[in-house]
């Protein structure tokens, strides 16, 4: 039997604490769209996506209405396009990006992710062409996201790809300099990329996934913060328990929405991604959770420990609430999308080096970080290499989404608006790492990857 306190608690979470379903993402395999002729492949891709996702947005809106829970984004992830475009030798991969954009417009989804290549061990046919086309593809499309996996715990780190991605990120910023350098905000460089991640910009539909499935990403930093707020004197064991209970409730909602969407669309339910995903809105910040735990400002000493505990408790609470957990699952720390992180950077407490340490204990990595426009390509590559090394050695996903703000320097702010927020330009070390990056080759996989 329902009791009034439970009902009011749920309503309060949604109304006052920004609880929402961040995304319903439909993963669609494009492996059956491969063709030696790029135009044929594009027609097949457009037809398949628009058929499979025909009712995705409508279904999301219906669920929102029925359960009274906002679903912020409806998205699609597809098979890494490099696998599809490789068959059509000599064709321009941007054609595929434009096809995805057309499909996104027809379906009315917020994003399509999967302009991607998996190159952790080396480049196969089509990979280099796709990577080199990324700046143009992200410039001529609006809702297409790209991701490149450059390393894994099993394969090591492809340093040729790391060096190349430094250039690509810089170029993406340059060609979109008149639009807040938006290009690289839609581009993620991964180590250990998950194949069922519903969150952008890194979503793609891995080759081992079913033909079509529904993945759900939940959110709710505000709910966790206000749960902690009620226990100012609890010790950390108690606090971990409180976070677990809250994460359980949030995830149950994701599970319900995913199951319902899967039933309505007749598509199997993949996973719930239990991430705490902040938005620039007041009360929706991961940094504020850490501060509520007892830090004066996010980024001070103790931040890594607090984040480690938060990340772990979120997972433990969420695991039991969901039939299948996947994706990134943990706390996100995108700087420009989190009001508390932005404040911490502006008051000089949060630096890239501290963020790097934080990425060793939370999901994802250096996310939505704005750096000076004159940063060298090698420095961007070296930042990627550092992150990939953390992911490779710790058997976890790490990623870099970094935005060189063309024409801007430290102290200025790049305004994106919307969910992407606004990013203060952060300082980077100006000492050269060019020789290291330009050596190329591969960093071998660590000893503990040899498990068989």
């Amino acid at each position: 039997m329902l009791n009034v306190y439970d009902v009011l608690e749920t309503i309060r979470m949604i109304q006052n604490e920004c609880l929402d379903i961040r995304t319903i993402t439909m993963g669609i395999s494009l492996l059956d769209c491969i063709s030696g002729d790029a135009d044929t492949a594009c027609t097949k891709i457009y037809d398949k996506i628009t058929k499979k996702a025909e009712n995705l947005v409508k279904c999301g809106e219906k669920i929102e209405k029925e359960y009274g829970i906002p679903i912020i984004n409806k998205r699609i992830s597809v098979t890494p396009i490099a696998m599809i475009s490789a068959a059509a030798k000599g064709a321009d991969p941007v054609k595929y990006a434009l096809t995805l954009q057309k499909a996104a417009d027809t379906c009315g989804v917020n994003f399509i992710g999967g302009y991607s290549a998996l190159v952790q061990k080396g480049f196969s046919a089509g990979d280099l062409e796709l990577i080199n086309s990324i700046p143009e593809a992200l410039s001529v499309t609006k809702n297409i996201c790209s991701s490149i996996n450059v390393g894994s715990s099993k394969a090591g780190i492809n340093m040729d790809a790391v060096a190349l991605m430094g250039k690509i990120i810089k170029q993406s910023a340059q060609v979109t300099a008149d639009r807040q350098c938006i290009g690289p905000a839609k581009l993620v460089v991964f180590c250990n990329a998950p194949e069922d991640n519903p969150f952008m910009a890194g979503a793609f539909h891995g080759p081992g996934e079913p033909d079509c499935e529904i993945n759900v990403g939940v959110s709710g930093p505000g709910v966790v913060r206000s749960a902690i707020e009620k226990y100012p004197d609890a010790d950390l064991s108690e606090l971990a328990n409180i976070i677990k209970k809250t994460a359980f409730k949030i995830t149950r909602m994701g599970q319900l929405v995913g199951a319902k969407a899967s039933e309505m669309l007749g598509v199997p339910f993949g996973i719930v991604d239990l991430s705490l995903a902040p938005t620039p809105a007041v009360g929706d910040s991961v940094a504020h959770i850490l501060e509520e735990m007892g830090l004066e400002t996010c980024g001070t000493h103790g931040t890594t420990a607090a984040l480690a505990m938060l990340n772990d408790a979120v997972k433990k609470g969420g695991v039991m609430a969901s039939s299948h957990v996947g994706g990134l699952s943990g706390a996100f720390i995108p700087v420009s999308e989190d009001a508390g992180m932005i404040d911490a950077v502006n008051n000089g407490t949060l630096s890239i080096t501290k963020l790097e340490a934080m990425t060793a204990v939370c999901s994802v990595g250096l996310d939505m970080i704005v750096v000076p426009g004159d940063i060298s390509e090698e420095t961007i590559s070296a930042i990627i290499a550092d992150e990939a090394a953390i992911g490779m050695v710790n058997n976890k996903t790490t990623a870099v989404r970094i935005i060189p703000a063309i024409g801007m320097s430290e102290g200025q702010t790049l305004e994106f608006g919307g969910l992407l927020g606004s990013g203060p330009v952060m300082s980077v070390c100006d000492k050269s790492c060019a020789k290291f990056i330009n050596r190329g080759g591969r960093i071998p996989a660590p000893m503990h990857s040899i498990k068989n």
Partner: protein
Amino acid sequence: MRAVVTVIGKDSVGILAKVSGICAEYNANVTDVTQSVLQDVFAMMMLVDISAMSSDFSALSDRMTALGEELGLSIHTMHEDIFNSMHRI
């Protein structure tokens, strides 16, 4: 299949009547009502059976929201599954 209607706001005459009137209009049967008035704040939770409703669930939900705006109250109409899944194992 049941929905939960919650009403929170300043107390006035006829809130319950208006809300249950709309339920009747859509053929949604009221099965339980809990209500309290604390220092002028009206809080009500109503369970309604929506399996034999005469129209779409979203029509009822929109109508309730509109009534809430009209009376200056916060009215939420949500499927009971969301509460059951969040608070029951």
